[in-house]
């Protein structure tokens, strides 16, 4: 168990550093921050002066090392555009995205689990086929488009829900639904296939032979085994949801981390981009490790080993 944990942590660290190097290079290649700050009419000397002040004229490895060394001590630097510490920018934007992500994954589970179980129990019926078709459709639908559709229907036509922002809690409903929509098909299909397998398993036949109630057979004996991979995948899906918040926050004009990332990428505000990428990759790796751990804990065969 300890070796398993150490191995996943090591792999996670490798993933994080790779992502950081890649994002560092890509953001440097995508535009010149000094030009953005100085404005399009600035002279070459002015741009060079700004570049020198920000240290952008140094070789890339030096810049990266400098940034990484500071980040390791908790100093993520200052935003070039907002004139604010990056860490405080993140502190104000993160809670919004976090709330959005948690709402979305809870919503996804609440919808996907019962539908997946029902589809498995009604395997091969019209209900099962319809659920499968809807799930496929959901997987294929781009979330920005779904977001816009929902804004038109529920926000503009029906006036039920706000079309942008999260000033009230109702503002979270549409964006969390859009985010959940991506995770629902994945969780639903996994729940369905897990339940189909479990309901055919020998131990379910034993449970029937023992005269247990239908509820006990489905919810205790079958679901417990089908749930193991679902829990693992849900943690990873939460990572995807947080990543997907970049698109959804822009569509719904919500000032969370995703919006911050989008804004700073567009303007070449490297310190912010790097910090957000670092945070997202840490969260993603953390969730992956957590999902491995949780599924190990759920399975007595792994737990004891």
């Amino acid at each position: 168990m300890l070796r398993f944990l150490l191995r996943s942590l090591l792999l996670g660290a490798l993933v994080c550093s790779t992502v950081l190097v890649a994002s560092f290079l890509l953001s440097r290649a995508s535009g010149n921050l000094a030009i953005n700050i100085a404005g399009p009419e600035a002279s070459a000397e002015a741009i060079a002066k700004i570049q020198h002040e920000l240290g952008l004229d140094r070789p890339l490895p030096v810049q990266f090392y400098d940034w990484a060394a500071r980040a390791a001590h908790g100093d993520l630097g200052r935003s070039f555009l907002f004139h604010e510490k990056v860490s405080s920018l993140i502190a104000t934007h993160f809670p919004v995205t976090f709330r959005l992500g948690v709402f979305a994954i809870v919503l996804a589970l609440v919808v996907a689990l019962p539908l997946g179980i029902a589809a498995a129990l009604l395997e091969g019926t019209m209900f099962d086929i319809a659920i499968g078709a809807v799930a496929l459709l959901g997987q294929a639908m781009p979330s920005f488009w779904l977001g816009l559709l929902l804004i038109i229907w529920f926000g503009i036509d029906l006036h039920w829900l706000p079309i942008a922002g999260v000033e009230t809690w109702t503002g979270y409903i549409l964006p969390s639904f859009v985010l959940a929509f991506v995770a629902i098909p994945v969780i639903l299909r996994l729940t369905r296939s897990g339940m189909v397998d479990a309901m055919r398993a020998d131990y379910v036949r034993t449970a029937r032979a023992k005269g247990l109630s239908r509820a006990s057979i489905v919810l205790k004996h079958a679901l417990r085994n089908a749930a193991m991979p679902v829990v693992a995948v849900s943690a990873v899906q939460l990572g995807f949801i947080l990543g997907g918040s970049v698109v959804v926050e822009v569509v719904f004009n919500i000032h969370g981390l995703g919006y911050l990332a989008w804004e700073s990428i567009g303007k070449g505000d490297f310190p912010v981009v790097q910090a957000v990428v670092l945070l997202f990759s840490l969260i993603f790796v953390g969730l992956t490790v957590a999902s491995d751990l949780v599924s190990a804990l759920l399975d007595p065969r792994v737990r004891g080993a």
Partner: protein
Amino acid sequence: MSPVLEVRDLRVRFGAMAAVRGIDLAIERGQTHCLVGESGCGKSVSALAVMRLLPRGAKLEAGAIRFADEDIARLPERAMRRLRGDRMAMIFQEPMTSLNPAYTIGSQMTEVLRTHRGMGRAAAVERAEAMLARVGVSAPGMRLGQYPHQLSGGLRQRVMIATALLCEPDLLVADEPTTALDVTVQVGILKLLADLKRDLGLAMLLITHDLGVVARIADVVSVMYAGEIVEHAPAGQLFAEPLHPYTRGLLRAIPVPGKVKRGEKLATIPGIVPRTEAGFRGCAFRDRCGFATYECAEPIAARVEGAHRWRCRLEAGWREAA
């Protein structure tokens, strides 16, 4: 005394395939009835039909299953649930997969008592522990807290047996209970089943393909072939004087240590089991039988002589030409 279980003309179909084609069975208290035959002959399907646990796609087409003074062949599922695990219990071939890997032995045993007897936790645990001790499980208190993967195959099968017997059923259906076990473990399990049957007065329906198992444990034997019982007799009589050519073939196919010579081919029955669709007529064994005549394509009436019953045109006392 009326039998604990009495099956009349049981028929089960999988689509067009007739898996069980009208079998009769009767098992009395304290009796072990072995249903023997090769894979696919319908013996396991018959056992599942008796428990009303047929898989989806299988249809209980006709027949009466008299158990506990009622015909349970048409009993609603809710009423069947009250009988299963309480008055009738079943154990399976795969002790590895028949226990739920996610729950402890204790949890899987006590749920039976809680469901059928409404027992509290403490009482149920006490009873489960006593039953584990009864079936020869060492350190039963510790086992209750263990998970299936921590137990050996033989122990798991003992756990299955203990679980089946918690409510003191009248009927125990055992589907190949020793097939997946090591030979030495098999003997222990068979002995245990024999002891339990005697002590608890169980009626036991034991499904097996292994004539060695039959010889050890059976009081009465029914030999199944292609969905029919082709021969039925008290165990001693069946081994002493098998009357159906199929039964004779089966018995001849058992290699006897010391008699089998190296390099000599083992006896087999040539041919394969036919697919019996609905409307199949005559003896299903005729294509593989050395004694078949044109008569065998017509429906064959069962011959009865005392407790011996066989479905063949050949009369008692027939001899194979030397």
